[in-house]
């Protein structure tokens, strides 16, 4: 079985995000970029599945500019076998990403697709679900535990009410939550080997997929700065402020 794992190049989680000058998005020029942390968890899970003998090959896939090759190399250094980059300089929406992934699914026929539940830049949390719908595969989202039972996956999901256990038949789409695993550090010899692993690049145009935008971004703004607190003299004043200023009671 092959596993397809998605890795997105995003603003490094340590970098403080700033809105760009024309308020169309986040400033990305000359800032540190890294693999989306949820995708690191996805790579780790795919590798563990392979190491447990339940898969033969892990393919790391990214959709983005040519620099996304670095993100794929990081996945290869962690242990993925080969990489595919669908190259585009445009910022694609989740639906376009899901369609491009479907294109790869048809080509590679993986038994399992592992994606981060969301990327920390757009926080969309849509791609996995859309891919499942487009391919007709089962979906197991927000996974915090994954167990193999033949061609069935038993997945523990983190939901609002607690933990939900479900079984899905493969092929399936799995999206990872934060507590699924702790991603490994790449070993030095593997960093060096990663350079020699195959990395295929495909132009978006060659996929024949319609990636046109369905949304218009009106404006991006930074969240309002937190204001300084005030000390109230008694409970009556507190109640008064909560009622009339904050309007929460």
């Amino acid at each position, binding site marked *: 079985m092959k596993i397809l794992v998605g890795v997105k190049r995003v603003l490094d989680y340590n970098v403080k995000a700033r809105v760009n000058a024309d308020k169309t998005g986040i400033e990305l020029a000359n800032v540190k970029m890294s693999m989306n942390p949820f995708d690191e968890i996805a790579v780790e899970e795919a590798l563990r599945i392979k190491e447990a003998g339940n898969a033969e090959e892990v393919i790391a896939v990214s959709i983005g500019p040519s620099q996304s090759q670095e993100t794929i190399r990081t996945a290869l250094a962690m242990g993925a076998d080969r990489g595919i980059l669908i190259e585009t300089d445009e910022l694609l929406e989740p639906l376009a990403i899901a369609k491009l992934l479907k294109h790869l699914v048809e080509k590679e026929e993986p038994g399992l697709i592992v994606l981060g539940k969301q990327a920390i830049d757009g926080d969309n949390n849509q791609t996995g679900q859309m891919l499942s719908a487009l391919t007709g595969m089962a979906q197991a989202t927000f996974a915090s535990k994954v167990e193999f039972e033949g061609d069935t996956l038993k997945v523990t999901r983190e939901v609002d009410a607690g933990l939900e256990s479900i079984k899905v038949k493969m092929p399936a789409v799995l999206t990872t939550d934060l507590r699924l695993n702790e991603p490994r550090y790449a070993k030095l010899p593997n960093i060096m080997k*990663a350079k020699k692993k195959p990395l295929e690049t495909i132009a978006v145009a060659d996929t024949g997929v319609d990636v046109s935008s369905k949304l218009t971004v009106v404006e991006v703004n930074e969240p309002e700065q937190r204001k300084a607190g005030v000390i109230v003299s008694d409970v009556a004043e507190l109640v008064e402020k909560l009622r009339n200023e904050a309007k929460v009671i």
Partner: protein
Amino acid sequence: MSYNAPVRDIAFMLNNVVGLSNVAKLEGFEEATEEMSVAILEESARFTSEVLAPLNASGDAEGATWSEEGVKTAAGWVEAYAQFVENGWGALSFPVAYGGQGLPMCLSSAVQEMWHSSNMSFGLCPLLTQGAVDALAHHASDELKDTYLPKMVEGTWTGTMNLTEPQAGTDLAAIRSKAEPEGDHYLITGQKIYITYGDHDMSENIVHLVLAKLPDAPEGVKGISLFVVPKFLVNDDGSLGDRNDVRCVSIEHKLGIHASPTCVMSYGDNGGAIGYLVGKPHHGLMYMFTMMNQARHAVGVQGYGIAERSYQQALAYANDRKQGPTLLGGNDSEGIINHPDVRRMLMTMRSSIEAMRGLALECAAAFDVAAKHPDESVREASQRRGELLTPLVKGWSTELGVELCSLGVQIHGGMGFIEETGAAQHLRDARIAPIYEGTTAIQANDLIGRKTARDGGKGLGELMADMKQVLNELKASDDVNVKAVAARFEPAIAAAESANEWLLGQNDPTQPSATSVEFLMMHGRLAGGWIMARTALAAIKAKQEPDADEAYLDAKTLLARYYAERMLPLVESGKTIVVDSADSTVGLDIAQL
């Protein structure tokens, strides 16, 4: 306090200033491309900041502990070292034949900075192993190499250097440890002190390299031999056998590096520790110097590595701490970073760290060229350059490292003097670096004697010529910061040349000896200026590229200018001290002191 490895600054210095691509052209170093260097530095940054840095303060507070059973490292160290080994970090620059990655020294030095910034006490263990591997790889028999190197390269066995004895520190001729031949091995007896990681619980075995004298040894340093003495004897099949007759009898209570056990080692309490001769009899000191040069360079890296950590902490505090209105910030809500004098301290730290980093990488790259270049004359010249720069890297960078860590405390004000803040630990840790692996005076002596007087100033002359070439490039620029660098660089070179001339003309060794440390510091500052001048030129060149980060590159040229304006005038005053202060230095009778 967290650590954020300055990957971008390190990569810029390595690739744009020192020129890793020239090293990567050499046969055997092809893997060391710019892209590969960044991938390695980034993963090293993750590992050191997430695994090693969090153990720095706790290791300092807990320290290593001694008992009859052996030395225990602080909580979390065994696990961190296991992870270090598993991820292959120790094997970076070791020979491929023994399981290493065979990467150049300049790249491995760039990585090692992060070990020492994140956790200097931890970094010492692989530093010593590296020295031991180098000594064995160069001088031991194939049999010894096959037995010990693979495990040491892997890191599952660590190495130590056993030179010092209570009566024999700088004067190694005075050592008393003995080696008696017995069959295919020797029986070692004696006591060694200041043995870093002489015992600990992080590795399966510890391989001691020990200086001792054979029964027929001639007097003096020519009578010293080098032996391998393992903690556990190694069976023919490579498995571990009996415990050898060597043990740690106590560990020292120190000013800093508390988590690194500094051991008193006793050999042969029960008849003699089994040891194996490395190379030929009586050549031990020469072999040890192979290890020593490497170790001295590595200690120089510690000098600025620890200063980088101190800088990061001071910078964060200066941004955070508010104390009324400031001249640069205006109102009360701005941090003390807006005081011009706090800027002075931060700029001194930042620019000096970059200069020291560049010099250490330049020195390492020279050794890389010396090791692999096809042309013998290039190899020789590069070896000469590497050896010339080594005492500067060790002596200047460690002395300056202490000064910078002191500034790091100063920026914190009273809070810096409080241990809980963590700024003081860096200063305490930094203080050993100008002492071990040869004090600053020893480095200065090496610089004026072996590295200058011995070749009639050839190596130093070549360096001055290279500097003048950079000066010409500076003069051709119309950038205002570069012009300012040139204005200070030119008189500094002239001052250094005049000091060199003075040194080579001295017949009485007392005169240069009395001012040798100033001579070393003067050349360190000048070499730092050379690096910063090249950094400014590299930044201006990089600005021509599409999508260049102008703010980042402009900062580089301004740091170079600050360095030139603040540090290079000290080269001129240094020259005055060098040529004209010896008489007063040694003028008093001892009774008058």
